[in-house]
């Protein structure tokens, strides 16, 4: 698998020498020394996104993907548009053949740096590596989260938010499938016919689940201010796209 990151173009914060030093050590393969420098710098600048990004790049070369992801997420907490962190997270997703997540991160990176050729090249590489089947065009709908899962609660596509970790999406897929099954049972036992959707309202979110095909369901989540009718309209559009996607998947 090819590294889609461009090691030669780490983000730089002017005047912060440890970033330069850490990066040079990393490029020379002196990873332990580079990590020491990065951690020392982070101790002084804990909210510096570039420092977390540097640590992420070092950790991923040390084979510590989980630690690297944590570093890049920390970088995004400091600066949500940090291109290096997006590229890093995309790289890990790409290696795991999670092309949808990789593409999602790179698209966000492109928004932050539309003329960065390294990001554009990485995005091209991810798209070229993807299977022929495309995911549902859920990004067009503008929803906070779209999650497609099968009847057993296994995630098929999407997430519960652009920055939500995969394990969260997996947990929501499992519980969403359980809710979808319960909805189908309720409808059957009360003779209500086939389920069209289940909507769950809470003080901070609105969630709707739509049966898509063969036990698969689509979960759409939006902030609580979203009118229910709009949530349903979005969900119906996305359900149609998801059905097409599943059909092409065969």
């Amino acid at each position, binding site marked *: 698998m090819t590294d889609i990151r461009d090691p030669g173009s780490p983000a730089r914060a002017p005047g912060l020498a440890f970033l330069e030093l850490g990066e040079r050590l990393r490029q020379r393969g002196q990873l332990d020394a580079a990590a020491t420098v990065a951690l020392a710098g982070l101790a002084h600048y804990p909210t510096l996104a570039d420092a977390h990004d540097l640590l992420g790049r070092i950790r991923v070369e040390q084979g510590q993907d989980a630690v690297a992801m944590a570093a890049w997420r920390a970088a995004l907490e400091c600066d949500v548009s940090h291109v290096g962190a997006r590229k890093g997270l995309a790289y890990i997703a790409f290696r795991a053949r999670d092309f949808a997540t990789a593409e999602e991160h790179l698209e966000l990176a492109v928004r932050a740096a539309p003329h960065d050729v390294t990001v554009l090249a990485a995005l091209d590489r991810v798209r070229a590596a993807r299977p022929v089947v495309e995911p549902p065009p859920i990004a067009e709908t503008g929803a906070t989260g779209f999650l497609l899962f099968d009847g057993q609660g296994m995630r098929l596509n999407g997430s519960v938010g652009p920055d939500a970790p995969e394990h969260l999406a997996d947990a*929501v897929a499992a519980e969403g499938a359980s809710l979808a099954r319960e909805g189908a049972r309720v409808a059957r036992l009360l003779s209500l016919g086939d389920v069209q959707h289940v909507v769950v309202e809470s003080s901070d979110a609105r969630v709707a689940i739509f049966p898509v095909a063969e036990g698969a369901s689509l979960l759409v989540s939006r902030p609580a201010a979203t009118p229910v009718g709009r949530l349903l309209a979005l969900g119906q559009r996305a359900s149609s796209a998801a059905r097409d996607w599943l059909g092409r998947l065969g």
Partner: protein
Amino acid sequence: MSGDRWQQILREVTGVPGVRGALILSADDGLVVAESAMDALDTADVAALAAMLVSRAGRCAAAMGTAAPTAVHLTARHGALVAVAGPEPLWLAAVADHDAELGRLRLLLGDFAGAIG
């Protein structure tokens, strides 16, 4: 609140065109607390199933990290079940035909749910 007031609320809900029945249920045990329904609707079944649907919705919300559900509605081809949270552990629920005014029903349940404590 008196049982009379509960019955008044339930009668108002069942007065919405297309509503087959309404009930106050305990989500903890899935049992009916008060009811007003047509003969064909078994409110005990509705209470048990609505409580389980609410429970599953709560688990889904917890997995997402959002607040506990305040309303759950299931819309199917031939009808709908709408449930709105009242004071813990009570929920106000209604079963309606597919052509019922679900928007009005949802608002009415929301208005009354806080008053069933």
